[in-house]
């Protein structure tokens, strides 16, 4: 009995003297950064802009639900973390980026390389690995500075923005964690959401996706191409709608177009080896329905067939255009080199290791199946 009491006293007293290694991190003493934007100035220095919510209202508003407002801070430093350390000097509480929802990169810094900017997040056990990643055309400071009323916290605005973009089908779904292997290995490259800021309207606008070669940004896809990439890649999450031009001789311009909604896809990549050179076949079967057809009178199977053919032609052209653009940017978003490495390893070691995407012929092969033309007929 006495022994137990002795032990109890010892074990309760010792922790008091151990407070030297106390790593308490009180929530109220942290500035929770919700959005970080990295950019580069002309001197090659990293500019970090960050937004954090600040409680609106005084001390006595306890009974009312307190709302938050975003406050913006911009600093620069030699490296990404250095610029954050500079920010810490300007701020009343300690800076904490573990809850950042979105990390934005300026086009300039993306062209230099992404990995070096987010390296400090990977090394930090409390790093915001779940933060979404996006590229901004123009200055990120402007993007962070956006006074958007749709969400109280600007980080949340971008978070929702990217989420909806992914649902609509023109964004890939990468966060800090999942983009890391793609930045580091050479066999597959990431494509990241690309935004543009319209300061007059206080809005961010989707312009497509930024193509990367390894960790460097090398080109841009527009929205249609982005959608096509998502379809070809098979990373479609929900239904993707596409506007397709089927005609161009109507005066009433609306009648030249049809809007289709892709319901399901069956993407398949096949590699053909001939004379030690590889051709990649991207075959894609699309099941779609027509959601808008201003010309109307879609009654006979013949008409439908004709329309299907026109759509197919148009989409194949779009796919070809997308692939060409990606080849130009040397962005292997489909992971074709990875496939070669897996299925034709010797050939890969000899010939296709770190090859430019241009050296591989990529053929899109689309098959379309109309399942539904709407409920009106």
């Amino acid at each position: 009995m006495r022994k137990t009491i002795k032990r109890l006293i010892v074990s309760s007293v010792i922790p008091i003297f151990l407070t030297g290694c106390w790593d308490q991190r009180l929530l109220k003493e942290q500035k929770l950064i919700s959005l970080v934007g990295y950019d580069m100035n002309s001197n090659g220095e990293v500019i970090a802009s960050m937004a954090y919510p600040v409680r609106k209202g005084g001390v006595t508003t306890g009974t009312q639900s307190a709302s938050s407002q975003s406050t913006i801070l911009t600093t620069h430093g030699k490296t990404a973390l250095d610029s954050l350390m500079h920010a810490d000097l300007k701020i009343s509480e300690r800076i904490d980026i573990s809850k950042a929802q979105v990390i934005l990169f300026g086009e300039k810094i993306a062209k230099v390389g992404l990995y070096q900017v987010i390296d400090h997040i990977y090394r930090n056990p409390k790093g915001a690995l779940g933060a979404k990643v996006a590229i901004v055309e123009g200055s990120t400071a402007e993007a962070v500075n956006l006074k958007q009323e749709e969400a109280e916290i600007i980080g949340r605005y971008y978070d929702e923005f990217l989420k909806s973009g992914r649902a609509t089908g023109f964004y890939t779904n990468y966060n800090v964690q999942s983009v890391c292997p793609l930045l580091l290995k050479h066999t597959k490259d990431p494509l990241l959401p690309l935004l543009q800021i319209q300061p007059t309207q206080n809005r961010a606008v989707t312009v497509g996706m930024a193509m990367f070669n390894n960790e460097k940004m090398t080109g841009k896809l527009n929205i249609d191409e982005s959608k096509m990439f998502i379809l070809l890649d098979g990373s479609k999450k929900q239904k993707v709608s596409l506007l397709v031009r089927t005609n161009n001789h109507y005066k009433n311009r609306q009648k030249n177009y049809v809007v289709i909604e892709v319901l399901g896809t069956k993407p398949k990549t096949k590699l053909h080896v001939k004379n030690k050179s590889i051709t990649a076949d991207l075959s894609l079967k699309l099941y779609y329905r027509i959601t808008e057809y201003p010309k109307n009178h879609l009654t006979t199977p013949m008409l439908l067939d004709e329309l299907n053919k026109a759509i197919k032609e148009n989409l194949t052209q779009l796919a070809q255009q997308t692939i060409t653009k990606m080849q130009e940017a040397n962005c292997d978003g489909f992971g074709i080199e990875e496939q070669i490495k897996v299925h034709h390893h010797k050939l890969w070691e000899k010939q296709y290791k770190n090859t430019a995407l241009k050296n591989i012929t990529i053929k899109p092969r689309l098959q379309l199946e109309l399942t539904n033309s709407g409920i009106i007929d």
Partner: protein
Amino acid sequence: MKKHLFKNEQSFDMDESSLESRINFLKESMGNTEDLFMLPISFRDRKGTIIYLSTIADSEKIQEGVLFPLIKYQDFNLHDIPFTAENNNRVDLQEAVNALLQGKAIVSMEGWDDIFSFNTAKDLSRSPNEPDNEKTVRGSHLGYVENLTTNIGYIRRGISSRHLQIRYFQTGQYTNTQTAMVYIEGIVNPSLVEKLTNRLQAVTTDMTFSPGYLEELIEDSPLSPFPHILYTERPDRTIAQLMEGRIALLTEGSSDAIILPVSFFSFFQATDDYNSRIIIGSVFRLLRVVSFLLTLLLPGLYIAIIAFHFEIIPTDILVVVKNSVDNIPYPPFIEAMIMAFTIELIREAGIRLPTPIGQTIGIVGGLIIGDAIISAGLVSNIMVIVIAMTAISSFTIASYELSNTVRILTFPIMVLAASFGFVGIIFSLMFIVGHLCKLESLGTPYFSPVAPFDVQGMKDAILRFPIWLLKFRPRDLLVKNRRRLYRPRRWEENEE
């Protein structure tokens, strides 16, 4: 041999056969107490006396059951008179003193060696009520009263079996409190009965006024925060526990029965579980187990999260929490302490005060203090939610003892959470689980059926399985007869 702390017996050098000397002896033995009444009678020209303590003997019973027969049957031999008062047996002088103390009337006649005692004790018990702290929706609403005989009567009425055994003990050398040990022969493990008998006989105190007083003297580790004796005021709960092979102790003058040995999960079993449908009963049992964990961990988890690991909660919630925490002058631990202390104060005040004022205290404490403390900015509103949730969930546990234990245990967990974060919580949980595994109740494992693991026993621990699946009594009790039922739904085979 029982050691006596004081001398209970006196001896006089005298002639015991003379009526006067007997009366004097009894008077002396009782210390000339003034409620000792003596009623002179004569029977066939012999002088005699009826002696009783007027405060606990019923004078009407004496009149009807002893005096009237004596007068009516003057022709009979004294032994043959059909007294209507029960329990007329012959006693010696020493026993007569004890009999007087139990409210019996003593009849002594000149020239007779025998002394008669009659059970004429006053019925001092109240009428049974539903116990306030063990209410049920369905089933019996009967509760124990403060009379041992009545209470045992309730159990006897519930178990009409010749196997139901009752053994009496006298505890407390001044109070001479009657304690009854009730068990079912043929189910209970005889070594448990022997062990408990030994413990009860070894108890030497001047008084025992309640089972709670006795509890500390007979349980295995009295310093443990966990109760390892189940209190109940319900005969039906007692009966169910007896049928599992446990032992019940009842004392005169208390409306509690204590049941032992019990396991940790006995405290989660409410009578309503078995009276309601299988799924519903199981869900509510589960709710109680969850609320136990919630009570134990919620304040600690909240403190750990906002002091150490706030990145584990979603950003949207975090912003709300940060807003409420930002202007609080105290660290979360102090904040939690203020709030938990307030709640304990309200609870304690509510119990001690008479009911109408108790409710007022609840309102003043809960609403006014709660509201004011937030607007004053002393405690964040999230913390109030957390502590209030904890308090409410602690009250859902079916045993008052365990619910208090758990609420007290949250304090050390809060300290550890505030000092070490999640690590502290894990450590405290390890300590608690280790302690639970080590505990014994009357020599049987307390944390059974979890440790030692018993699949059969688990059927009635966290969930309440259908009654036809609860075929065996708990293994940890080492009962004589484990099988509880044989094919109770046999009719299914006969139909169709």
